[in-house]
């Protein structure tokens, strides 16, 4: 009960007051593109009013069109930047919004934004976990310590920023020794700035004698860049699969449920996901060198333990590393809805019914409604594959391709869900300001082989043509997706 009261207090509501009915809410969709469209569709489904925003570059985007059609008066506002919280707040006040949905990216994991939304004079609901949870789990070190305190396995190494050179060397030495004892051929240690992020200030060390110079370099870099000398030292795991657990809970934070696992191991060279598959492994179809079923249940249990511990009160994803030996390590927690939520939704059945919409569930629980089902009511069926269609050059380091899309068509099928903000009936100029994601294709099959076959059918039927100002033809990752469809869920 106290958790419930806490979050109500955060939102300025007196405890004990029943939440406002759904149709009295208005949600600010503080995002763009495909996710904005999905949020708006879910709102329409739930009967919640919404207000969308767009910038000048996005005027031709599908989400603008949808908002114009379905948003009604005060359904669409133009802003100068999606990053400007002040402007978003002004729009929310103008439109009379009662809640904000951040989508993914932009403000999704910004606890300051969440705090601001819930603590400003004119309070709103932040559709996402409460800001304290975002802050707690958004900090990787904190997450790691929390995990260790609950006995959840994490990557071996330090669990706090190291400021002392001697201590750093001692830890690095023990990480090297540990890997040697594990029989790893080329032990690697990762040195990273604890305040860093987005891949900045990370370096690998393969030679223990080299550690000191790398450590100093990273420390000085962190000092300059992040004003904090703290450094983390971890084992570098090279051969692994990337798994995720989809968790959702209502505002009481007491009964989190999971919607299965996902495997996101097929990534670009920049470690960006390209294909996501649910469930995480297919032990009934494929042979693994470890007990895959056991791993899946373990990571799900660990994730729910942590969610229960922190009183997690919305949608979130626990990201795991699974090594070739079948050891899971917690990597981080994403306190937001993810791009690939649809692939989990498509294999899930609540009370045996299809058509689960995780975003709708998120909005519904975020606005204060109880979840209404338990883990026993959730089942999974079949295999889902999600392809991210992106205009990029896989042969050239996945460089984004910019230009004009002239033709974008595919064959509809009952097992296919296509999510895109790119209009199919008109040419579309890819804006250079945002990430070049064009569409998400979610494919469902009864088993892995059927899903793979349907995926290839879809990719073969896809027509994606265009050219840029230099007259070069559009480059896309369709070929890459085709080539990788065969190896999905293989370790």
């Amino acid at each position, binding site marked *: 009960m106290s958790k419930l009261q806490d979050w109500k207090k955060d939102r300025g509501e007196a405890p004990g007051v029943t939440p406002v009915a759904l149709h009295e809410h208005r949600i600010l969709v503080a995002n763009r593109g495909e996710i904005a469209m999905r949020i708006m569709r879910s709102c329409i489904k739930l009967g919640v009013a919404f207000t969308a925003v767009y910038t000048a570059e996005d005027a031709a985007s599908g989400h603008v069109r949808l908002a114009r059609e379905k948003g009604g008066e005060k359904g669409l506002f133009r802003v100068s930047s999606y990053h400007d*919280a002040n402007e978003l707040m002004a729009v929310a006040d103008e439109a009379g919004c009662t809640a904000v949905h951040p989508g993914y990216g932009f403000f999704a994991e910004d606890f300051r934004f969440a705090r601001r939304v819930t603590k400003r004079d004119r309070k709103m609901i932040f559709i996402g976990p409460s800001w304290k949870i975002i802050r707690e789990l958004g*900090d990787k070190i*904190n997450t790691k310590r929390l995990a*260790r305190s609950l006995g959840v396995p994490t990557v071996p190494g330090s669990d*706090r920023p190291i400021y002392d050179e001697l201590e750093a060397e001692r830890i690095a030495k*023990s990480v090297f020794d540990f890997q040697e004892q594990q029989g790893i051929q080329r032990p690697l240690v990762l040195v990273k700035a604890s305040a860093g992020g987005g891949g900045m200030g990370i370096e690998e060390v393969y030679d223990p004698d080299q550690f000191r110079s790398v450590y100093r370099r990273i420390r000085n870099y962190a000092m300059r860049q992040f004003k904090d000398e703290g450094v983390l030292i971890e084992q570098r795991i090279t051969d692994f699969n990337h798994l995720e657990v989809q968790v959702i809970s209502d505002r009481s934070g007491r009964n989190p449920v999971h919607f299965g696992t996902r495997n996101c191991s097929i990534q670009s060279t920049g470690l960006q996901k390209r294909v996501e598959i649910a469930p995480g492994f297919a032990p009934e179809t494929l042979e693994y060198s470890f007990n895959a079923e056991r791993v899946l249940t373990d990571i799900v249990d660990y994730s729910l333990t942590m969610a229960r511990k922190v009183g997690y009160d919305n949608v979130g994803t626990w990201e795991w590393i699974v090594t070739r030996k079948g050891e899971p390590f917690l990597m981080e927690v994403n306190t937001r809805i993810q791009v690939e939520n649809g692939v989990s939704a498509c294999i899930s059945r609540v009370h045996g019914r299809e058509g689960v919409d995780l975003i709708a569930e998120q909005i519904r629980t975020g606005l204060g409604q109880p979840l209404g089902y338990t883990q026993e009511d959730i089942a999974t069926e079949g295999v889902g594959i999600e392809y991210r269609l992106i205009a990029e050059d896989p042969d050239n380091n996945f460089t984004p391709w910019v230009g004009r899309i002239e033709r974008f068509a595919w064959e509809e099928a009952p097992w296919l869900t296509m999510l895109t903000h790119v209009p199919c009936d008109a040419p579309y100029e890819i804006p250079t300001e945002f990430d070049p994601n064009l569409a998400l294709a979610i494919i469902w099959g009864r088993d892995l082989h059927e899903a793979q076959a349907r995926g290839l059918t879809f990719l073969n039927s896809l027509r994606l043509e265009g050219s840029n100002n230099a007259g070069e033809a559009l480059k896309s990752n369709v070929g890459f997706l085709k080539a990788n469809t065969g190896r999905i869920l293989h370790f």
Partner: protein
Amino acid sequence: MDNNIAKRIQSLRDRLTYLQDIFAGKHADNANLLEERLAAFTERARWAQLDDPYADIASLEDLFAYVERRLEDCITPMDKVRIVRHPQRVCLRDILENVYDNFTEVGGQDEHSLDPGMLIARAVITRRSGKKSHTQSVMVIGQEKGHGAEFRNGGSVKPWGNAKALQYMRVAETEGIPIHAYIFTPGSYPIEDYPGAAQQIARNIYGMAGLRVPVVAVISEGGSGGAEAIGLADKRLMLSHGYYSVISPEGAAAIEGRIKEGERATPELIEHCAEHLRITAQDNLAFGYIDRIVQEPPLGARPWHFDFFRHLRQEVIRATDEVIISTRRMPLLKSIALSRRRKADANLDEMHMGWGLSASAKERLRERRQQKFLRLSRQAACDRRPFWTKTATAFCDWLAKPWRTFKYDFYRKHQRQMRSMMEEVSNEWDLFRNRLLSPWRRLSHKLPGRAENAQAQLELTALSAWSGDGRKSKWNYISPRFKIDRTLTCPNSASYGCLDLWGPDLFAEFAGVCSHCGYHFPMEPEWYVKNVFDVGSVFEFNSEIEAGNPLDFPDFSARVAEAQQKTGSKSGCMTFEARIDGIKMVVAMLMGTFRGGSVGAAEGYKFVEAAQRAAKKRYPFLAYVHGTAGIRIQEGTHGVIQMPRCTVAVRRYIESGGLYMVLYDTNSFAGPLASFLGCSPYQFAVRSSNIGFAGPGVIKETTGMDIPPKYHRSYRALSRGHIQGIWDRRQIRANLKQALLTIGGRNLYYR
């Protein structure tokens, strides 16, 4: 017309214009009378209508003298200001030519000089004892106004002029000759160069606080920083028509009347300020900031007042002699010698005494000078400490002194030797033990089944001890402004494109720092007190010393009371003992919220007390400048005397082995910066602070030049060499600790 008559008529004309100028329209009847009589005489003399022109002109001169004597009685302070600024006023060259027997100008000649405003000369004074004559050298240093010479810049000295003065003071110290400083300056030239004005003045004052030769200063026009740059003297004489003040009356009026750019203060207001700032020689003598007044002829000395120069010569010789005598150890002989020189009819030219000093006498001279300045201006601050507190403090000090001497001068020294010896012994023992045990170790490593694997796994996956808790707020104290629900615009947003910041984020989590460009919004002093130092370690002392209104400046008491009410502290300087991770220190904090952080008698008193406390306890001493606008002008000379006074305290502290550090935040300007803050060898600033001598408005007013933007930014101060580093506000604690550990020695006191 006789040529002699013409000359005398001309000189009378000069006297008349002088009289008219200095009274600026007052006493017009007297001036008109003189003008009429002079015109009538000139008319008649031109046509040779006079029987005895010499007798007539003598009577006319008598009339002039009579009127001048009459008007002398009704001179106001503002008239004195006009007197010292008049082109006919005596200047340093006149004094050199008439007071000294011979001189050679060094460090430049006329306009061909590093700074023509600063004149330096080696001069000699010849004195006789019986039939023998003795020639004594002195170093004469002073500002030269010239008689309206443009290139002299009105005696406003640039930083390099002050550097030149300091250089020749050092020369005089090497040669062991006394220094005579003549102060004829309206103020220093407020330019930030290499070095900046404040920086150089601070060096000068710090240098003069330790000079080992007698220094005699003669003040004619003593304007604030420029005067202090050469004014820290054993004896300070003052010409009776001079003024000595913290700021020119016009400047005071501009500040008092809150004059905006382009406007001018009314003459009444200027007159009012001149009167209440108590800038005259008589006032300063009463306060004790000068030692003696040199009487000038009626309406001020001009170059033809040769008797004045004779008098001045006697006075400077007497002052120098007295300084020399004061270093003697025999009290009886000392008083006899002093009384001989103080007799009214004593002719100092006939009394010879050497001006050289022995090494121990030089030490005593220095000590006397420092003590003299430390004693000044105590009466100007209201010390509200209860009697028993003061007694108890004094008693505790008396008790603790032998203990501290034992601890620092004896025990620590030997402890250090002991420790280094023990380290060597233990190192040798380790080596020996390893040799002894190595065969066994080699054997045991090869044994199978060593449970190191599990141990390593445990070590790498178990929780390590960590005191930092990420969930708690980083700050112990949060500015009350964090409650405002509105956004603030960063001043740099135009150039760096910073997004507006939400108040609760900015003032709580970001510590008032723009998250995009690092601009520092000003924070309250409490923020620093509670966040920089260990929780609960701050112990304030001397909080009962109150800022007051020593000059009874009109309406000022109410304003001080208002500031006290607003900030809840009694003066603009908070002195406390505090710790950073257990490192103890004494801190004097100038608070920008209390009347702009201006320094008056109470602030100076507390600063000096804090420095002395740090020296006594062997703690590092930190001057934390939350903000200072300069010397508090409403306290007049009580304020300006804090510059040499606090610098003396700082110098004594540093020379006793202490570590004195200064940290600037927000805006730090003028007097304090040009003395006790600017003289520290270790000065740091947080970003976005402004450091300089005078603000843009004052520079525009005094020099007529438009300063470039960001003229006073801390980065500029860094490139001028004024400060040693720029810190981020969020890093102050860590940087301060690191600086203390690296700059301070083993016990953070003795370097």
